[in-house]
């Protein structure tokens, strides 16, 4: 197998099939993400978007096709899931912070326990990350004391602390108040502009149009249409995409 180089896609998804029992949720999905690209996956509920990105860090397994992250083959039966997950950060819809740990501890845990890094270095990095997600002063707050938007930003910082190559965002603003959505989107936008490779499942069409390099529209387990935002929104050809966009925009 050829070594991964920067010219290859950092995430390569080829003809992926996924079943939950009898139910087939992904029916041959293929997409490539280059390093530094921001990719948005949109589509109606139940179309398999979340399942797809959960497959990228092996939270879900696949029954057909191939997924490679930086050349690591996820279908390899000997796959080192931990090695993979050190490279792929994930942010969830419900934040999923550890409720018994402060914001700082949430961020510091994985680098210290998993990467075995020096506590002082990790602490400094965690402070910088808190600054980056604009939460200075909330270092010692517990998740229960933070708003949804603040918790989500801590969750983003927590994933970033592992210095991943790819960030996955699974409908990260879907559970937030309209007012707090923006602060989370700004954080993601900062990241994208710094060159982080991001795959986002989102319902925020305006945001997708603004930051995405490429947009994929999925329906019923397949990618129906894709393209750069400039053409995707104005020149959608597939009737399902058109209908979806007309309902949302």
């Amino acid at each position, binding site marked *: 197998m050829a070594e991964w180089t920067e010219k290859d896609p950092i995430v390569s998804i080829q003809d992926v099939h996924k079943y939950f029992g009898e139910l087939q949720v992904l029916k041959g999905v293929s997409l490539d993400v280059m390093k530094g690209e921001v990719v948005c996956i949109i589509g109606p509920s139940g179309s398999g978007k979340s399942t797809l990105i959960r497959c990228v*860090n092996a*939270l879900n397994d696949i029954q057909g096709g191939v997924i490679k992250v930086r050349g690591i083959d996820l279908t390899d039966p000997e796959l080192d*899931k*931990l*090695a993979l*997950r*050190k490279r*792929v*950060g*994930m942010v*969830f819809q*419900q934040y*999923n*912070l*550890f*409720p*018994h740990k402060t914001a700082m501890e949430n961020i510091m*845990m*994985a680098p210290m*326990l*998993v990467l075995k890094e020096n506590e002082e270095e990790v602490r400094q990095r965690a402070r910088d990350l808190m600054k980056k997600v604009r939460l200075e002063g909330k270092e010692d707050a517990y998740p*229960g004391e933070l708003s949804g938007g603040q918790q989500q930003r801590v969750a983003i910082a*927590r*994933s970033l602390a*592992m210095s991943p190559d790819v960030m996955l965002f699974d409908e990260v603003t879907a559970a937030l108040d309209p007012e707090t959505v923006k602060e989370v989107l700004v954080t993601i936008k900062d990241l994208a502009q710094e060159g982080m490779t991001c795959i986002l499942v989102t319902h925020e069409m305006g945001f997708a149009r603004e930051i995405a390099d490429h947009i994929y529209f999925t329906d019923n387990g397949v990618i129906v249409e894709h393209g750069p935002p400039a053409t995707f929104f104005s020149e959608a050809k597939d009737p399902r995409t058109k209908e979806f966009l007309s309902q949302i925009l």
Partner: protein
Amino acid sequence: MAARQTRHAIPGLGRTATTDLPVLKPLSRPVAGPTATEWLAGLPWWTALVLMAPVMLWPFYVQAAGKFTVITAFGTLGKWVPFLFMSGFLFNILISMFAMLFGTLAGAALGLGQVSKFAFINRPSWFFTQLFRNSPWLVILFIVLLALPFEIVIFGFIISIPDWMKAVFGLSLPIMANISEIVRGAVQSVPTAQWEASESLAFTRRQTMWRIILPQCFKRMIPPWMNWYAILTMATPLCSLLGVEEIITLSRQAMEAENNHPELLVPFYSFALVLFFIYCYPIARITVALERRYAVKL
């Protein structure tokens, strides 16, 4: 009148609300929560006085029957009270504490075994949990008493096993099984999202369990754990059937020493009852209070 009618028309206010839609009823019982303790804690404090009434009133009845005087009955019990308390009841407490200690340690291990992802660990753990959870305590005690030798030989040293140690062992088995269920229930009550979040941060399963899951459910385990301690304490008189010299055995011996007057039965056993009530009632109250406190913040 109009207002009254409006009020009457609102379902749930004026009359009972009805619907044919599926309704999510409030959870009336915690998964592994107390039942016996809840009932005990629900009793008002003066229950102790009611329980004591036979001790107080029985002598009057007996006096009326003309056999025993109040003074004799009280005097007889009074004479034995320090002995029954110091040598009897405190021994019950000691047995309960040892049984709880071993039961908790073994139960914690068995509970973690139940949530293991390896079938060769979780299947046997499940089996032993169910076995000891669903067997009568007395039967377990008898088996332990008869199955264990009265002495063991290690490297030529003869170590004798007194009956009370066997009783501790026997009582710790059902406690172990129930603690095991508490641990399993508590671990499974933590949302799977917490597992996924830890997994996505590349935590190992062991790290996830010890750093993320267990710290979150530790508090939730305390009330049911205390509940089982109260139940265990109340079960320690079972040991008298094995000849362990705890309060019930000693009460019987004391009554024999007092020529087995049948009139002594109620005062003596009521005294034991009151001691157990005074010890277990506060535990039950604290359990229910803690349960309420921890139930709010999940």
